[in-house]
Each structure stands twice: as structure tokens, then as C-alpha cells.
């Protein structure tokens, strides 16, 4: 088994991982230290899911905007389940990070005077979302990747699948990875490790996420005893394409797109988001620019009332952009046109786009403190895989791209500082753990064993999650889902890979990802079942649980892994030091919000 030694190992080459790598490299330079940084990713960095983000990244930009306003939007958007100290740090560092991106060459869209342009986004009081046409994530990821090439100290391990962390006496000592091209195991000894492995949208059948978004990093930390926090909060995006789930960005509504039911009626005014804003004059926090959870819930209500249309076998409502005119649509939303034309054969210039909600974002994740460190010494997490406490019960669109930057950098700097005064652990310790991994892999791929088929298990999992933990949830549906997931976890122990080849064995990877998925699905279901209230993205239909209950549940859920035994749940206090919980209101009802 090959072993290599690094000061810092970063797992994940998406926005968070790349920003962490650059942050660590810069921090090392500042300390006058020479540190070796390894960045592993199961796909080439520019394939990471950040590439798919369309809409934009938020930061207080214009002179009439304030940090307080961004703070308030984020806190109320998250239904007060956020760490307010973290949000405070976030809003104060957002702008400098976006400017830093600009300095690295990110092609932000511009105003005529050459300054960066901002657009409106759902749940944000003012226009503060920076964008690069409708390919913001794409441009950010490529800018970060290309910039990372400037740093020789960042050594990339592309297409290495990280199997496990090596942990000894409560401290991380390295990672164990599989080189996908050869099937060889590699040991990376490290003084600090950063997880930046992204979300877990693929737990659900219908989602906007890329195929690689399977929650691997969450499972790795979880299996070593780190809590997964607030996993019951899963964001449905109101506008996915029927069939594939491909995202139609919220920016469409920011630009003035409207939502219609099958009768051509702007139904959002019936759900506390009105009054109707005039065509072509979108107003923040009203109607189509309400937050995602409310919009997805409104869809569900319309569906129940039989006022949705049909596209293929999906129930849909309609996103109408036509009144924006061809020029604006093509200039501001070119990618959307391309997507709609290719994938459902609809030209947004001429027809409304049929859409439906789809799972989009994992609010919860690996619990970290405000410095991005987990309960394991030297182990950090940043990006969508982490729960640093920014999003609470519902993430606001365009906060997460900024999160990657703000907390990616912070994690990188923290890891660099720790590495500076930490020694490598004894190699023998790593080898022992790697041996165990090797045995597990060998068992998985043992062709002589009959066993469970990963395809069946995967379909059963996404089915269970969708029916149990959808836009609206009931005690019964969640209990069923949890029971099913636990059964599937037991069956997973007997899973078998047909492909015996060592080279680029993607079936093996699917199975490993599924194992991760099932573990965190249990955490997600358990959190959902135990949270007997409705808050943010977690909405119950059960009697007496349809509203927020701050007395009992103004708390983070923490789920702890128990091996083969059922996972355990704890509650954790929330940091509400700046802003006391208040009614979360949009439309005219939200007018009284303090500014």
C-alpha cells in the first residue's frame, strides 16, 4: 500500500475544497511555513457539483444595504434555527470573498459603469446576489480551479475515492483512498483533514443534484462519531424540470418570471405571499420571490387541489418568462433557454416552462464549531457537507455559494494553523485501519458470494425518502421511512458487486456511495420523526404540529452513529444571542420586519 505524507489533506474539489486549498496555501505562506497540501476528489475538480449552480452568490454590496439586513434575512429564512454568531461572521466576510473571486478573474456580470451587477433572489430583502449570467457556480468553480494551479504546494489526487478517515484517540491522522483508475489503495497521512464533499441530494429520487452528490463525507465523519446536525431539513427547490429534475434557477423569478397554475392564475397570492406584484416588477420577499420552502409547499397545496397541469407523468405548474422579452431572456438566462429546449423541448421565449419542486440542498450536515472544526481534533468540514449553522431550517438561495468561499477559506486557514504545530501519527496506526478497508472491499467484490443487488437497494432508498420525507411529512410516513431505511441498512451488509475488475470499477463506487447514503438517510429520517413541529423546510401535517414550537424545538437535532444499532438523537441549544425568534412572514404580512 502506498503511503504519502501531507500537512493538510482536503477531501473534495468543489467550491469549498478548492477555496480551502487556496486558503491553506496562503495561510502557510503567511506563517512562513512550507506545507504540503493534498486535495482528493472522486471526480476532476471542475466536474464537482458546484459547477451546476446557476443563480448567484450573496453579499451586502450596494450602499443602501446593510449587514444587519443580510443577517436578518438569513436568520428568519432559516426560521431561527441558525447559529447567529456564525451568520454574523458570514455576512461580514461575504463581500470580501466575492471581491477576491473577482480579483482572481471570475467573470461577474457587470453594469455599464464597469461595476459588478447584483440581482434579486428569493428571501433576500434587497438585490445583493452577484452573478455570472446564469452560470455562476460554473464560473466560480473554474476560476477557483484555475487559480489553484498557481500553487505548486497544492497536489491534486483527481479521481481518488476517499473511503475512510483514519482516526486515533479522538484526532484525525489521515485518510484512506481508492485510486479509481487502478483500484489501488493509497494512504495519506495528515496533520489536519478538511471534508468538503458536498451534499446528499441523491438520497431522494427526484432531485436537482449531480450523480456524485451522495453524502460520502457526511457518512465518513458520522461513522467516526461526529454528530450529523439538522439532517431533517432538506430543501425542495420549487422549479425543477419534470422528468430529470434539472434545475431552472431562481434567477428566472428574480428577473421577473411568474408562476402560474394550470388555469393561468398566480396562485402564490393565496399562500401568504401576496398581494400580487405587477408583471415585470418583481418585489423582494413577495410572490415569486418568497422563500423556497413556502413556494414548494404552495405547489403541494395546488397539487392536492387538482390545479396542477401534466407534463409526461409529472404534475407541474408553469414558470412564465415570456413577458421579459427575447432580449432579456437570452442575455440574462441563456443557459435556462438551452436547458429547457434540450431537455423538455420548450422554448422559454415562446412558452411557459413546466416545472415542479425537486430536492435541492441538504441544510444539515457534519456538525462543526464556528471555526469549522468538528468534534474530532484536526478534522474540519466546510461547504454543503458541513453544518456550521448558517442555514438552519431553510437555506436562502445564493447564500451557499458564498458559504463555500467564506468557510472554505476559514477551514483552510484553521487547518494550516493546526498543522503548523502538530506531528504526524505513527504510520502503523494508519496501516492497521487501511487493512480493515481492504478486507471490506475484498468482501464486497467477492464474486463467489450471492448477495443483495445495489440497484434494488438504491431504488428502495430513494423511494422511501421521497414518500417519507417529502415537502409535507406525517408521523406515519416518517416512521415508515425510518423503518424501511433501517431494514435496508441491514440488507446492505449483504450487498455484492458483480464487477470483479480493479480498473475504473464504477459499480463498486455506486455500492460504496449507497452505503454512505443509507447511513445518513437514517439520520435524516430520525431527525424528521423526532422533530414534532413544523419549521422551515420541515413541514408536518400532523395535528398540533403544523406550526413552529420554540418552547420545545428551538434546538438543533444531533444524530449519532451507533454502528449496526439504531442511531441516537440529541438536542442542542441554538445560538440566538442577537435576534429573538419572531414570526417568519413574507409578502405584505412581512412588512413589519425590522430592517
Amino acid at each position, binding site marked *: 500500500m502506498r503511503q504519502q505524507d501531507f500537512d493538510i489533506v482536503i477531501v473534495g474539489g468543489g467550491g469549498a475544497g478548492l477555496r480551502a486549498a487556496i486558503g491553506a496555501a496562503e495561510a502557510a505562506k503567511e506563517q512562513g511555513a512550507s506545507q504540503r497540501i493534498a486535495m482528493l476528489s472522486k471526480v476532476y475538480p471542475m466536474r464537482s457539483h458546484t459547477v451546476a449552480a446557476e443563480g448567484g452568490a450573496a453579499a451586502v454590496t450596494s450602499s443602501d444595504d446593510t449587514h444587519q439586513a443580510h443577517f436578518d434575512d438569513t436568520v428568519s429564512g432559516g426560521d431561527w434555527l441558525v447559529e447567529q454568531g456564525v451568520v454574523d461572521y458570514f455576512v461580514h466576510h461575504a463581500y470580501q470573498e466575492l471581491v477576491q473571486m473577482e480579483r482572481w478573474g471570475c467573470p461577474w456580470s457587470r453594469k455599464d459603469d464597469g461595476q459588478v451587477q447584483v440581482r434579486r433572489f428569493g428571501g433576500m430583502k434587497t438585490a445583493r446576489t452577484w452573478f455570472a449570467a446564469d452560470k455562476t457556480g460554473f464560473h466560480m468553480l473554474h476560476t477557483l480551479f484555475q487559480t489553484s494551479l498557481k500553487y505548486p504546494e497544492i*497536489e*491534486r*489526487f483527481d*479521481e481518488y475515492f476517499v473511503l475512510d478517515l483514519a482516526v486515533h484517540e479522538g484526532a484525525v491522522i489521515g485518510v484512506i483512498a481508492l485510486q479509481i*483508475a487502478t483500484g489501488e489503495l493509497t494512504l495519506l497521512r495528515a496533520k489536519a483533514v478538511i471534508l468538503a464533499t458536498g451534499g446528499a441530494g441523491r438520497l431522494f429520487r427526484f432531485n436537482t443534484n449531480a450523480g456524485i452528490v451522495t453524502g460520502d463525507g457526511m457518512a465518513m465523519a458520522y461513522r467516526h462519531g461526529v454528530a450529523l446536525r439538522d439532517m431533517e431539513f432538506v430543501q425542495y427547490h420549487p422549479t425543477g424540470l419534470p422528468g430529470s429534475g434539472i434545475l431552472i434557477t431562481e434567477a428566472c423569478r428574480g428577473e421577473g418570471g411568474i408562476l402560474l397554475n394550470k388555469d393561468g392564475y398566480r396562485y402564490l397570492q393565496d399562500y401568504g405571499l401576496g398581494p400580487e406584484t405587477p408583471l415585470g416588477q418583481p418585489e423582494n420577499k413577495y410572490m415569486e420571490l418568497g422563500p423556497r420552502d413556502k413556494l414548494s409547499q404552495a405547489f403541494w397545496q395546488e397539487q392536492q387541489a387538482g390545479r396542477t397541469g401534466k407534463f409526461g407523468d409529472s404534475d407541474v405548474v408553469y414558470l412564465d418568462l415570456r413577458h421579459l422579452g427575447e432580449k432579456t431572456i437570452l442575455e440574462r438566462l441563456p443557459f435556462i433557454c438551452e436547458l429547457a429546449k434540450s431537455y423538455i423541448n420548450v422554448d422559454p421565449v415562446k412558452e411557459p416552462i413546466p416545472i415542479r419542486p425537486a430536492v435541492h440542498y441538504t441544510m444539515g450536515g457534519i456538525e462543526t464549531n464556528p471555526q469549522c472544526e468538528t468534534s474530532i481534533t484536526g478534522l474540519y468540514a466546510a461547504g454543503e457537507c458541513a453544518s456550521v449553522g448558517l442555514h438552519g431550517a431553510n437555506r436562502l438561495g445564493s447564500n451557499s455559494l458564498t458559504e463555500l468561499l467564506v468557510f472554505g477559506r476559514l477551514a483552510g486557514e484553521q487547518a494550516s494553523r493546526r498543522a503548523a504545530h502538530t506531528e504526524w501519527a505513527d504510520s502503523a496506526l494508519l496501516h492497521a485501519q487501511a487493512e480493515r478497508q481492504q478486507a471490506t472491499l475484498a468482501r464486497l467484490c467477492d464474486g463467489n458470494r450471492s448477495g443483495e443487488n445495489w440497484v434494488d437497494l438504491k431504488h428502495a432508498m430513494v423511494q422511501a425518502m421521497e414518500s417519507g420525507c417529502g415537502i409535507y411529512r406525517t408521523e406515519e410516513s416518517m416512521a415508515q421511512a425510518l423503518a424501511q431505511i433501517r431494514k435496508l441498512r441491514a440488507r446492505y451488509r449483504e450487498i455484492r458487486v458483480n464487477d470483479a475488475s480493479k480498473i475504473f470499477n464504477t459499480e463498486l463506487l455506486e455500492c460504496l456511495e449507497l452505503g454512505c447514503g443509507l447511513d445518513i438517510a437514517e439520520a435524516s429520517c430520525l431527525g424528521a420523526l423526532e422533530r414534532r413541529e413544523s419549521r422551515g423546510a420541515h413541514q408536518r401535517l400532523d395535528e398540533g404540529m403544523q406550526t413552529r414550537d420554540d418552547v420545545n424545538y428551538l434546538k438543533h437535532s444531533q444524530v449519532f452513529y451507533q454502528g449496526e444499532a439504531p442511531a441516537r438523537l440529541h438536542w442542542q441549544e441554538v445560538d440566538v444571542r442577537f435576534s429573538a425568534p419572531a414570526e417568519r412572514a413574507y409578502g405584505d404580512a412581512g412588512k413589519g420586519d425590522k430592517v
Partner: protein
Amino acid sequence: MNKTSSQRLPPLKRNWWLKHRFFKLYMLREATVLPLVFFLLCLMAGMVALVQGADSWQGWVGFMGSPVVLALNLLALAASLYHAATFFVLFPRVMPLRIAGRSLPDNMIVAGQWAGVVVVALLFFWLLGRA
């Protein structure tokens, strides 16, 4: 790392361009220089003849009229037009012309170049077409 980056494929076989229409048209474009070279050599022969005197010159005109030579030069004419058609569309992509920050539409540039061909032909008509 340590992947297989030292691995290199054997280079393409020499008949690669027969596999796809696009590549055949490319080769055709490149091959337009063959009849061109023939015509240029004819032209140079004409110049030699001109230096040698009136008889050689007449002889050369006769040579140019022989069927094979004439056929090849007709081919060269066709080649020059095909070359023009392929070359003109490349120009705006190699040198996008911008006027006041806006780039000129490609088809305008292409049309302009064809206008050039016509003007040159008219010039020749003016020079040689009238007695």
C-alpha cells in the same frame, strides 16, 4: 498522479481523413493548392516566354489552349472559388472586426470579401475585356 499519463496512443493512421465527411472537405480545401500550383507554374512559364520574345509568347498561349492544360486550369478556377468560400468564412473568426465595441456581423464581412472578388474581376474586364 502516477496515473497513466505516460501512456500515449499511437498517432492517427494516414487515412484518418477518409472517415468523416468534414475531414474530406478539409482535405479538399487543403488540396485546392495543387491546381493552384499548376496554374502558377503555367503563369511563370508564360513569363519566361514573354522574356524570350513574341514567338514564344504565342507558343505559350497555344500551350495554354491545349485541352489538358485548359481542363486543369478550369479546375484551378473552381479550386480558387472553393478556396475563397472556405477562406472568407474564416476571416471574421480570426480577426473579428469591432466598430465602437460591437463586433461586425460575420456575414457582412463575408459579403464584403466576395464583393472584393467581383471588383477584381471587373478591374480585369476593364483592363483586358475591351479592345
